[in-house]
């Protein structure tokens, strides 16, 4: 196994080893396993997209929104601070 997802709602998985561009990463979701072809290198502990995420769309991990995509993210792309922004603790946020 190369990466973990936590919920069926998740659209990102977390790499549990350093992964390389072009690799077919094995993602575990509970007992279920599937593969995703990586479009970029993904460091250990970092995330990649399981499906295409449109600009403005929610990024979901643990079955919950962890932020919003700032650009269109393609399935297999590296997901981090360069293409996701949090919505909390931010000026202008209304709870």
């Amino acid at each position, binding site marked *: 196994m190369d990466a973990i997802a936590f919920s069926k709602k998740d659209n990102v998985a977390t790499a549990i080893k350093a992964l390389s561009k072009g690799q077919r990463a094995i993602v575990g979701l509970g007992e279920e396993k599937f593969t995703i072809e990586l479009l970029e290198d993904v*460091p250990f502990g970092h995330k990649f997209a399981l499906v295409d995420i449109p600009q403005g769309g929610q990024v979901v991990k643990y079955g919950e929104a962890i932020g919003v995509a700032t650009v269109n993210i393609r399935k297999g792309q590296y997901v981090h601070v360069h293409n996701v922004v949090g919505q909390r603790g931010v000026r202008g946020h209304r709870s």
Partner: protein
Amino acid sequence: MKLKGFLRPNGKIGFRNHFLVVPTVICATRTAEEIASNFPNVVYLHNQHGCNHMKDDEKKVVNVLKGMASNPNVAGVLFVGLGCETIPTMKIFESVRAAGKPVECLIIQEEGGTLKTIEKGVRILQRMMEQYEIKEVETDLSSVTVAIECGGSDTTSGIASNPVVGYVADRLVDLGATVVFSETTEIIGAEHLLIKRAVNEEVAKKLLELVSRCEQSALAGGEDIRGVNPTPGNITGGLTTLEEKSLGAIYKAGTKPLKGVLEYAEPIPTGGLYFMDSPGHDVESVSGMVAGGAQVVIFTTGRGTPTGCAIAPVIKVTANAKTYSRMSDNIDVDVSDVLEGKTTIQQAGERLFQKLIEVLNGKLTKSEMLRHHEFGIYLTQPTL
């Protein structure tokens, strides 16, 4: 589950037998350090505060100093004040003494300087330890308050070490123990999940108020929490947003009902799961929970961190195999086999639970062995 503890005059049970020197103000800290250094088993608090505080901050400083001295892991206390500090040294001293444990107080200006205070302090402590009668008793987990902390988080914290600690937290609550967790900045974005577990409306409301107060005060100070949290280290470790960090962080508190929400360093009631207001700053957060009465701390880390506490054992847990191999002098329990799929969260949780029992029964943690006695107080106002 049988445990061995030390009975205090107020009926509380400690799992360490520390004698503690408490400088009530920064001006007395050097003197306190020197007094403590004369004995192998005396510790002191590296206090950086105690003067010129506004009202709310003064209350926090008083509660932390009082709480540390009152913690059941402490057998006896020597307070050291300067004499002109704004913090009420004599009031703190008298309120701790009222609970019955041996407590003394020295004022540097009255003693006539550093050297005279050191000599008198050393003599006082020597006599206190000589006269101290050890009362060892058999007890169980119902007399234990466990503080849960995470620091230097990376993604391994949220996907393995925090769930393992969450398993232990649930097991502890089932066995009658008290569990407290904190770090208000690190529940932002996960509060909707926590309030579902609140035992009543009032607890839920208080939790939401704390989160809103924390978010608003950071914004009012011109600070976007996002600028400091996730920290640069968290981001290098793979955490992208505050929400992601918070969702991973709340795993460590398990799944039991949330019985209460406490102010920073407030005494922690007995039995069940509590949340205490604190910043994400690990040392300030741990100091607040130990001042609240926690006798032991379980601390998860991804990137690795050495910090401990002067009067409570801190058990470090990581699921990052690289961090464990590089910082094994700082980390007590390695649960990286969970990430490799070799062990379940339950199995690793049992391993950590057994470690906790050993530590309560006297086995030293790495932070204790290396005398990591970090101490900090969470302040929110300017110093005058």
